[in-house]
């Protein structure tokens, strides 16, 4: 491998935060003797990528294979990309400072819809042909994965292989297959043909893309170019997740990254079934690690990394059946050691607040709740099973326990939303504010801060709302201004996300293979780092649409009947399209579907389809409005409590991750 360090070093004198381009971090793995070299790349800067758990997990599983090494690579900051181009320096790996193009394979995690142009920026900077079809025998294999690979088509021409679903076992299998077949003398095309036949892999170059009419008739947009290829690619699940240790080696970065702490994943999957939520469909079934496993993992992880903070991560950590036990034990363990414990959670009720209270210590920053919609009607439509009483119970508990700041998250433009729902947000928040005031001593009421943050609804592939169009950005702004006018209390701040980025997200979420040309053209027009407010280049995306003749508004905004075959029909999360359609119909009827980890099976299809059931450490007990009759006395239930610092780093929420740093 070429060592680029002598050429990189002189450039670092003028680079901002050069620590992100160095190697030598504590915990780095070097395997110079390895015969097969894999590079795991996060298509954004080190500060964002090094915090990514997929990167850590996949680097570890590949390094565990004999004779294989995994190194990391990140996209340099925008200005430094330009410096490197000007100096003719290609994209390099962190550990060996070796050109990425010299590796045998590169894995790119597609964590949110706004990384697409960064993928092209990275491939180009690395000197790798952008299109899979232009890569030859000497070129490396480009493998994609992560949330966006559940609609891989807008990225399809740029990748040789997509790993659909969890990669703990799948990725090493894929790399071992490449190594074995190469050793046997197979050519690139034959290797791809073989991998396309392995479980959980999609090789887009082996499928012709149909036009709309053909696709609707055939029930699928893809047509295999040869016999024996799967036409339905189901995601892989890491079946050993619950039993596997929550601690695994991790690199301790020098420079501050977005979540600069130990992460221990306590459970995977969430079955609450919010109808807009892709993660809730994508990571089923629900699998919990046991309290013993979690506590041991935290103790071990903190000792081996030297971190002073640990986050118990998952989609809904306070839903863990043993969370109270876990937090109590951790509190005892780390008493007086200056260790902070944070719990990102998706639960809005007094239990959630109690859990946040267990770890907050004396310092109570802010709490974040996500009711998502302003009226009960709309919350029923989206299956967000939270009542006003749940929210008010949480507010009473939080402000009574000493919190003084609270942030409320809502979505604008949800299916069936009317102006009444928008006004309902204002009404709900004002009443929550009144409750907060009552819970706080008179002399401290001046310290109460409440803010509303709204994001534009993005219809996500593989969800019950995949058929629903997004509202136009101008309409979104009208609804935001209606909301601002409706909020009469001056103590309540209203924030909103730029709808033009949400528009690009919607196109990327719903687009077919034709969207790839749009992405490429946008990148050629200068789009990159789209998740960064200061870099988002709306004009580039507009110019690109004109150049390639794509109507992005139609892709983002058209609503379809549930019988319409969407461009990702061939990719499966295990949740059946029939279930998604059924949920969409129940949404129209304003009927909710309970969480199967608390109540009966909702027949989503994931467990039988994937051959694995929910794995809970002990039975879960619902509270509040979701309680079964015998627990009806308990306060509050379901929605979202998030210890504030945790919100900043929520997975797959592009813009927030990049911008927020309060």
């Amino acid at each position: 491998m070429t060592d680029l360090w002598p050429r990189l070093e002189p450039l670092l004198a003028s680079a901002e935060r050069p620590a992100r381009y160095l190697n030598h971090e504590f915990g780095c793995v070097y395997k110079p003797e390895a015969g097969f070299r894999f590079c795991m790349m996060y298509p954004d800067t080190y500060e964002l990528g090094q915090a990514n758990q997929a990167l850590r997990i996949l680097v570890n599983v590949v390094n565990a294979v004999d004779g294989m090494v995994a190194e990391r690579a990140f996209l340099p900051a925008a200005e430094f990309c330009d410096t490197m181009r000007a100096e003719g320096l290609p994209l390099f790996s962190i550990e060996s400072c070796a050109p990425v193009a010299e590796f045998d394979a590169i894995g790119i995690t597609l964590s949110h819809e706004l990384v697409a142009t960064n993928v092209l920026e990275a491939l180009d900077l690395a000197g790798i042909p952008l299109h899979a079809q232009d890569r030859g025998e000497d070129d490396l294999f480009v493998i994609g994965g992560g949330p966006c690979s559940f609609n891989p088509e807008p990225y399809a021409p740029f990748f040789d292989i997509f790993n659909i679903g969890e990669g703990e076992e799948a990725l090493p299998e894929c790399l071992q297959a490449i190594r074995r077949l190469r050793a046997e003398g197979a050519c690139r095309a034959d290797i791809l043909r073989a991998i396309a036949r392995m479980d959980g892999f999609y090789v887009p170059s082996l499928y012709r893309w149909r036009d709309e009419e053909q696709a609707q008739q055939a029930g699928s947009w893809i047509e295999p170019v040869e016999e024996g290829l799967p036409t339905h690619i189901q995601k892989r699940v890491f079946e050993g997740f619950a039993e596997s240790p929550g601690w695994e080696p991790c690199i301790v970065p020098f420079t501050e990254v977005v979540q600069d702490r130990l992460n221990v994943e306590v459970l995977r999957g969430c079955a609450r079934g919010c109808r807009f939520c892709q993660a809730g469909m994508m990571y089923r079934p629900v699998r919990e690690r046991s309290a013993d496993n979690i506590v041991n993992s935290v103790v071990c992880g903190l000792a081996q990394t030297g971190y002073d903070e640990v986050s118990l991560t998952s989609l809904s950590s306070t839903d863990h059946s043993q969370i109270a036990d876990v937090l109590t034990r951790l509190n005892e363990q780390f008493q007086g050691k200056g260790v902070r414990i944070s719990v990102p959670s998706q639960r809005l009720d007094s239990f959630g607040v109690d859990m946040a209270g267990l770890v907050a210590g004396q310092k109570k920053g802010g709490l974040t709740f996500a009711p998502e919609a302003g009226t009960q009607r709309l919350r029923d439509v989206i299956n967000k099973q939270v009542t006003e009483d749940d929210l008010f119970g949480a507010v009473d508990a939080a402000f009574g326990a000493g919190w003084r700041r609270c942030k409320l998250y809502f979505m604008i433009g949800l299916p069936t939303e009317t102006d009444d729902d928008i006004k309902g947000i204002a009404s709900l928040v004002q009443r929550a504010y009144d409750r907060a005031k009552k819970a706080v001593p008179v002399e401290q009421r001046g310290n109460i801060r409440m803010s509303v943050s709204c994001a534009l609804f993005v219809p996500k592939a593989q969800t019950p709302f995949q058929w629903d169009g997004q509202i136009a950005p101008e309409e979104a702004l009208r609804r935001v201004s209606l909301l601002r006018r409706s909020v009469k209390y001056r103590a309540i701040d209203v924030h909103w996300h730029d709808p033009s980025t949400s528009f690009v997200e919607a196109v990327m979420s719903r687009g077919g293979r034709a969207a790839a040309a749009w992405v490429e053209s946008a990148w050629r027009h200068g789009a990159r780092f789209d998740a960064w407010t200061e870099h988002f280049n709306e004009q580039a995306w507009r110019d690109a649409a004109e150049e390639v003749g794509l109507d992005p508004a139609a892709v983002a905004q058209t609503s379809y009947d549930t019988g319409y075959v969407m461009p990702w029909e061939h990719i499966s999360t295990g949740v059946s399209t029939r279930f998604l359609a059924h949920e969409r119909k129940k949404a129209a009827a304003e009927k909710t579907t309970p969480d199967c980890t608390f109540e009966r099976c909702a027949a989503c299809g994931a467990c039988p389809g994937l051959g694995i059931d929910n794995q809970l450490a002990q039975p879960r007990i619902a509270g509040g409005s979701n309680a079964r009759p015998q627990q009806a006395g308990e306060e509050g239930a379901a929605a979202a409590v998030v210890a504030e610092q945790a919100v900043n780093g929520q997975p797959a929420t592009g813009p927030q991750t990049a911008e927020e740093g309060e």
Partner: protein
Amino acid sequence: MAEQQTFRMRITFAKQGRLALLSHLEVARAIERAVRRAQLPFAVSQGFSPHMKIAFGAALPVGVGGTHEMVDLQLLRYVRPEEALLALQKESVPDLMVKECVYIEPKAPAASAAFPLSTYRALLSAAPAQLPVPEQVHIIRKKKEKVLDVADFLVGEMLLEGASLTFTLEQKPTGSLRPDKLLAACLDQVNVPDDQEQEVPLAFLVDNAWTQSIEPPADDQPLRVLSMTRIDQRAK
């Protein structure tokens, strides 16, 4: 609550190689994590947000290494210095290596205040015959320009030996002159921007009588700093 009796340990470490590019905060975080990994019985502050009782010596700029950097750590119980050293070395990366642990008096001045004199050694990309020292250095910080008189900070002469340059700066209670800024100002006088005509810069002519002795560095490459290291910190 009575203040708990603690043991004050001064840890000396080196910041070198490519890790000279770390910022002071990054170094502080890395050392603190090494202390935690080494499982030393460090003291934790009381109050709102408890943290390790650790105090760093004078900061080094990004890009400047150090052979004897210091940090004071408060321990809740006595650990033999050689044991602490071994434990810390095991948890340190090679270019940020702990070299010595000693106990100091509870009332001894802090590492950040005890050693106002810092001696730096820079390695240049070529060996200039002379390197004139500017009288003033202009610093732009947060869009405000500040002018520092070099004579207020520079102790003795700058010693040029081939491509190696050694000089000592004094840290004042009112502020300090960063060694990298001083050196950059020195080099600015020698290196003429591409778009300007190659002639001896004005500042240089004013300050020095022997202008003709400057040799242009090889290959018309501008003279630059290859590395800079603090080699000594001492009391006045």
